[in-house]
Each structure stands twice: as C-alpha cells, then as structure tokens.
C-alpha cells in the first residue's frame, strides 16, 4: 500500500510519464500523413514509404508506445510503492 506522503510525488511522476508517452505518439500521428506524399518516392519492404509509415508504421509505433508505457509506468508504481499486491 502506498504511503500517504508518497501520493503527491507518485502522481507527479505519473503525469510526466503520461505526457512522455502520449505526446510523441500524437506528434507522429499528425506528422506522418502530412509528409506521406513526399516520402512515397522512397520505398521500404517494397512499399511506398509514405503509405508504409501511415499504415504499418503507426500501428508498430502504437504497439511500441503502449509497451514502453506499461513497462515505465510499472516501474513508477514500484518506485513509489503504489503497485498492486499479487
């Protein structure tokens, strides 16, 4: 169980982790389609690069974002003693 005085630092840490995970992903999601046309002249795995990044790329980045978030947030939970007791 989390100690009372740990709550504030825990929540500050959690907020930072939320921003660190979410903002890069949203940036990427906004930027990729805008440059898709220019990137399409290159190819990757046989795909036009722009199409590949908007389609496969964003899904892979999303999986990576959630995986790293789960890992980091779990570390934050344990650091502050906020984790679930199993």
């Amino acid at each position, binding site marked *: 169980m989390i100690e009372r005085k740990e709550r504030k630092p825990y929540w500050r840490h959690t907020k930072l982790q939320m921003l660190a995970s*979410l903002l890069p992903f949203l940036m990427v999601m906004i930027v990729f389609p805008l440059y898709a*046309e220019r990137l399409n002249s290159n190819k990757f795995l046989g795909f*036009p690069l722009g*199409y590949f990044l908007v389609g496969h790329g964003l899904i892979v980045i*999303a999986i990576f974002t*959630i995986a790293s978030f*789960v890992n980091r947030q779990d570390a934050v939970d344990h650091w502050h003693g906020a*984790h679930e007791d199993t």
Partner: protein
Amino acid sequence: MTTLGGTRLVNPRLGTYFGIFVSAFASLVILALVAEQLGAPDLVVRWIMLFAPLALYAGIGVASHTNDPADYFAAGRRVPAFFAGLGIAISGVGGVGVVCLTGLFFINGLDAWCIVNGFVAGLVVCAIMVAPYFRKFGAYTVSSYLGRRFDSRIVRIISAAVLVVPLLLVVTAELKVGAAAAAELTGRPVIEMSVVFVIALVAGLAAGGMRSLSWAGAAAGLAAILALAVPAAIVATDATNLPLAQFSHGPVLRAVGRMENVQGLPIPILSPFAFDLAGTELEALTRRMSHPFGSVGPASYILTALTLAAGVAVAPWLLPRVGTAPGVYEARKSLGWAVCVFGVLILTTSAMAVFLRDIVLEQLAGSSATQLPAWFTTFAGSGAAAVDGRLPKLPLSSFSFKRDAALFALPIAAQLPAVIVYLTFAGAIAASFAAAAASTLALGTLIAEDAIYGSRWEILAQGPRLAVTRSAIAMAASLGAAFAALLPADPLKLMLWAIGLTGAAAFPVVVLSIWWKRLSTLGAIAGIISGFVTAVLAILAGEAGWFGVPSTLCGVFAIPVSVATAIIVTGLRPAPARHLLEMVRDMRVPGGEAVYDRELRLARLKRRQASAN
C-alpha cells in the same frame, strides 16, 4: 457465490480451449470444402457457413452462463490481457471496420487510413489516460463510473441518457452490416437475417452477460482473423510468393501505382477541409491508392483522426471490457494486445483491397466492354459493380464498385473455391457478431443499471438485478434490429457519428474526472450536456451542408466546447467534497481493492449483518 477481492484466478486452460475452438472452426471450413467437392448442394454449404459458426459463438455464450453479478458484469475480472485485448480489438473493428473499411481502402486508398489512425490513437490514449483508472475504479459502465465518481445520481442518469444514443447507433450499424453479409451469403432477405442475428445475440449474451461476451467475443475474434487471413494469404501467395499478405503486398502496391500512372488518374487538389469518402452507392475508381489527400483534405484527415481517437478512448462499448482484466497492470497491457490484433486485422483487409485493385487494373482496365471476365459480369449483374462501356478501350475510371462489396469481390475475382468466398462472409459475420454483442451488452447494461436503477445507490439483490439486465439486453438487440431495418443510413456514417458523439459527450468529462480532481458535479453535467448538444447540432449542420464541415467531424467543435464549459462551470462552484477528493486519490493508485468492488463487499457485509440481527 464467489468472493470479489481475491479472484485473480485466470483459467490456465484458456489456451487449450481456444485452440480447440480454432481447430473446430478450421475443420468446419475443411469439411465444407470437402462437401463442396463431393457435390453437396451450394445452398447447404452456404447455410453451414452461416449457422455453424454462429451456433458455436452462441453456444460458448450459453456455456458461460452465470448468476453472480461480479461474473455477469465484469467476467469475474478473470480475463487475461490477451483475451481482453482481442475482445476490444474485434468489437472495435466490427463488421463496419472489416466490410466498409476494406471498401474505403479499395476506393479511396490512403485517405481511408485516417479512420484507422484515429482508432489506433484512441486505443493508445485509452491505455495511457483512461483504462488503468477505469479498471481501478471497477465500475461496470461508463455512466456508473461517472455517477459514483461524482457521487451524483443526476450525473449517472444524464450520462446514461446521452450515451444511449451512440450505443444504439453502433448496434444499428453492426446489425446492418452483419445482416447484409448474411443475406448475401444465404440469399434470404435482410430482415430475416436480422432476426437470426438478434436470436444469436440474445441467446449468446443473456445467459452470462460480460462473461459470455468475453469468451464468445474472443472466439468470434479468432474466427474473424482466421477467416480473413486465409483468402488474403492465398491471393498473396499467388501474387508475391509469400503467404504473409500483411507485409508482402508492397511491390503489388507499387505496381498498382505505376498502372494508375499509365491510366492517368488525376491528382486532385482539394480544400483542406474536404471529406469525400465513399458512401454506399456505386463509386467510380478515380482515386490513386497510395497518394494521400485525393478525397480527404489534410486538415480533415488530422481532425478526423483526433476526434475518432477521443471517441474510441472512452467508447462505452469498449471501455467496460478493460474492467474484466485481472488487475491494473493487465488492463494497461490489454490495450497493447488490442492494438496488435487490430493492426493484424486492418493490415489484412487493406492488403486484400490492394490485391483487388491490382486484379481490377490487370483484368478489367484496358479491355473492351465485350471481353470482360465472367466474374465481373456476374458481379455487375448483382448490382455490386458497374461499367460505363462507351469507350472502345475501357479506362479504370469507367469501372465503379459498391464500397461494401469490395471485401467479398476479392475471393471471387481471384477465382478461389466457393467455400473460401463463403469463409470471407463468415469472417465479416463473425466481426459484426462480436461488435454487435459488445454494443448490445453495453446498451442493455446501461439501460438496466443506470437508467432503470440509476436513481438509487443501494446495490440490489442479484435476482431482480440480473432479470432486468437480461430483458434489457433482449430489448437492446431488438431495438437495434428495428432501427437497422428502418434507418436507410450508411453504417459507416452511423459508426463515425457514434464515435464522434461519444468523444464529444464523454471524453472531456471522463478524462478530466481522472486527471483534474477538482472537477465538480455541476461542471461534469454541464460538460456532458454541452458536448452532446454541440455534437448533435454539428451533425445536423453538416448534413444540411451549412458551414461546409462534414457531419463526421462533429467532435471538432463539440470537444473544445465541452472542455471549456466543464472548466468554467467548475470554477464558479466551491471545491468538491472531501470524500470525493479522497476517492479520486484512491482511484489514481493501482494498488488496493477496486473502488466499486469494495463498495459491493461492504454492502453485502451490511446486508448479512442486518439479516443476522
């Protein structure tokens, strides 16, 4: 009666059970293939491909019957991350995603990805900002969560009244797609197939609620992935020598691009707010496949993705699934699995769209009206495609296809055996079954828990509580079928409206209620109502064509309005009560018992003490 706190017991044989299910499904398809080769009547094979899988899902639902509320509303919090994610992904994609999105990929090309991008972003936002806290709170519906979070029955009832609208739209859209696919498969009228769907839904859901949905939905998800991956893999092996369609269709896509250059397809310059995705009518093939912004302007693209993300992150038919995970850590992980499964499904269908475009360019474009292949003439005869045969050498743009027929056109055009064609239908039916089941259950629970019993806090005895929920589920399914029969609307549009409305009405308040502990009850009410009203007005304005902003972008106005109203109204009122702040602090920490489960336990303890005295 099971205890609530310590049930973290995940069934260790889940993998085996679903292995058996997948083998059963595969052998069913192989048996159908054998029967077809032995000369069984075509109609029998078609009916087998419709009924056998539906009976399997409904049977799994019946087999997981339960009378324990914790099982009925949260699957006993025993669904491991992968299966919870599988359920979320398949009910998120649904028949609309499988059937309509494939058509959009085929007709609109890269621009259709704005919907996918929004969906993926929604799952990410949900995993990071909403899901862990929703799981820790442990409420069974989004409205119950809001009501308890603000300790206000009014918030609960208002949010339930508002969220009924998008849920009903989703049930309607999914039943429309599912019944249309089943009707196409069996050759019977759509109405009859809607009735079949409603019977399967009620049979599968009423017995076990969320428990049934978790396992039947997971089975339907696996069936849908398998059913779509098989035709995609066969066509991919044919075209690229690699059965991994999802990653091997790149060279085909570039070849398509070169042929489109030869055909001289235009590269239009659109206004940034243009939004012209294909509807249900015949649509000429005039857009390039890998060229962005041919039918959706850049601003529309980004805004669609962002507003869809907001809606998906708090979708009341997806979020309660998070509550079935055994813990907060698993709840976060389940969304990761959801993105994985979602990605596999969408990459499969987008690959199928690319292969279909390739076949159309190779076999149809450049030929004359008299020498079109047989599959196309039968296809055109059924009204799913058409050709403008005036020119001696037909260009690509003289062919038009119906969006919702593209998925089923690929196995026909590739001349695969009839059973594989029916398998594609079975995949679409499985996906719509899973999504319709998820939204029907969410709608039924919302009506029973938050609308009918929303005015009281005491936790009811389980007998009447489950009886009411079961009848509400039956009512929700029939209501959806009635709407599906009466509304002549485009299912994709219904789905986009539903997600837009959810994003406008619920997203700002749910996110603020977690991340801003001072949000007051009145602020929440104002946020929900203003967001919903603005979104409805934006949809009406968009349909009437007033400001030139499409109705599917309703969240663009509504979300900022909702956030601003919630913050301003909160600022006018005194700070919220101490026990609410304490509850938010409790909700933010993963450790400890789920807030709602503790309430249930205490209520039960109180009742036992009262009966002892």
